[in-house]
């Protein structure tokens, strides 16, 4: 008797499975025909890193404070800088990112106080030669030309409650750097031995 019940049960469940697949046969496909159709990447999408420039002057926002270089866990960012004799401010002379080792974590964007570096929704950056993955400053600036962004306001005091829609990191990063300034610049020193980089000339107080 149990054999009969088992068999009928089994056949019922086999048919149940067939019903599920045939039900899906008449549903619309959910996949995308990739090169013809493309996803719209969400606003926060973390793809290729770009350097942002000022919308009015067209100059890079980067002030070569080396914060992103220090924040990078894989040391993909290399910055060389020079002091502009006129303005007495640092300017980057070379800014390279090795996208081959970049892990797209977004810590550089979080570390930046000047809206100079951003991870964008661009993702089709495949090339044949690995060395072409090392992006230089001009190329990064070119990539960042059409990227919309909000320039961070110079708010020193943090706001208490954030709206869900606002980009919370903006104010936080600001507030964080505010905290840090209060602490003094000595706290940046320990980052130094991650990479052999000049560590004492971080121009935090410049802003």
């Amino acid at each position: 008797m149990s054999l009969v019940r088992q068999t009928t049960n089994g056949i019922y469940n086999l048919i149940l499975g067939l019903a599920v697949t045939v039900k899906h046969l008449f549903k619309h496909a959910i996949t995308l025909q990739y090169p013809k159709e493309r996803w719209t990447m969400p606003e926060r999408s973390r793809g290729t890193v770009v350097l942002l420039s000022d919308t009015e002057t067209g100059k890079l926002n980067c002030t070569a404070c080396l914060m992103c270089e220090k924040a990078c866990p894989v040391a993909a960012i290399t910055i060389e800088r020079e002091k502009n004799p006129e303005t007495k401010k640092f300017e980057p002379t070379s800014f390279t990112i090795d996208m081959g080792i970049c892990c797209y974590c977004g810590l550089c964007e979080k570390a930046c106080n000047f809206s100079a570096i951003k991870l964008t929704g661009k993702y089709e950056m495949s090339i044949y030669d690995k060395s072409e993955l090392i992006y230089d400053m001009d190329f990064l600036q070119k990539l960042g030309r059409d990227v919309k962004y909000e320039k961070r306001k110079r708010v020193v005091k943090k706001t208490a409650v954030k709206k869900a829609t606002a980009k919370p990191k903006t104010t936080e990063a600001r507030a964080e750097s505010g905290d840090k300034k209060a602490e003094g610049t000595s706290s940046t020193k320990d980052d130094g031995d991650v990479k052999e980089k000049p560590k004492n000339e971080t121009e935090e107080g410049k802003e």
Partner: protein
Amino acid sequence: MDSEGLLKYITEEYKDKIIDSGIVGGVATIEVKPGDWESIAEYLKGDMETRFLSVSNYGAVDYREKLGGYQLVITLFSYEFNHKLTMKTLLPAEGEECPEIKTLSAVWPVADWFERETAELFGIVFVGHPDPRHLMLDEDWDGEYPMRRGWSGRDFITKPDK
């Protein structure tokens, strides 16, 4: 038993074997002599009051600069009583020396792989281990121990060529 009660019980029960004890980060912690490592583990597993049937974590810390040796750390826990215990021991060693200690894999079979990993990465010899092959590293690894402090076999950060 909560951490304090457990610690109290264990320190009273194994008074003569425990060097140091305390609560570190909410977990009852005891330190024993390397010679007692295996015997106290067996006791703790068999003790009906503790019933440490399982190993949560088992590894080593290179304390050669600070304490002059490697510290073995094993965190035990008991499904039955839901309590944890960290047991430590310091293996004195200097330089490139490989200290020796008795294996725990007879007590908890899971310690097998933990010890194989610790052995190859720290250079601690587990005496009596049933299968002392390399686990993570190549079979023909050159004999350096990568998890030791100051190991500089390879640079961890590669810079792009300029």
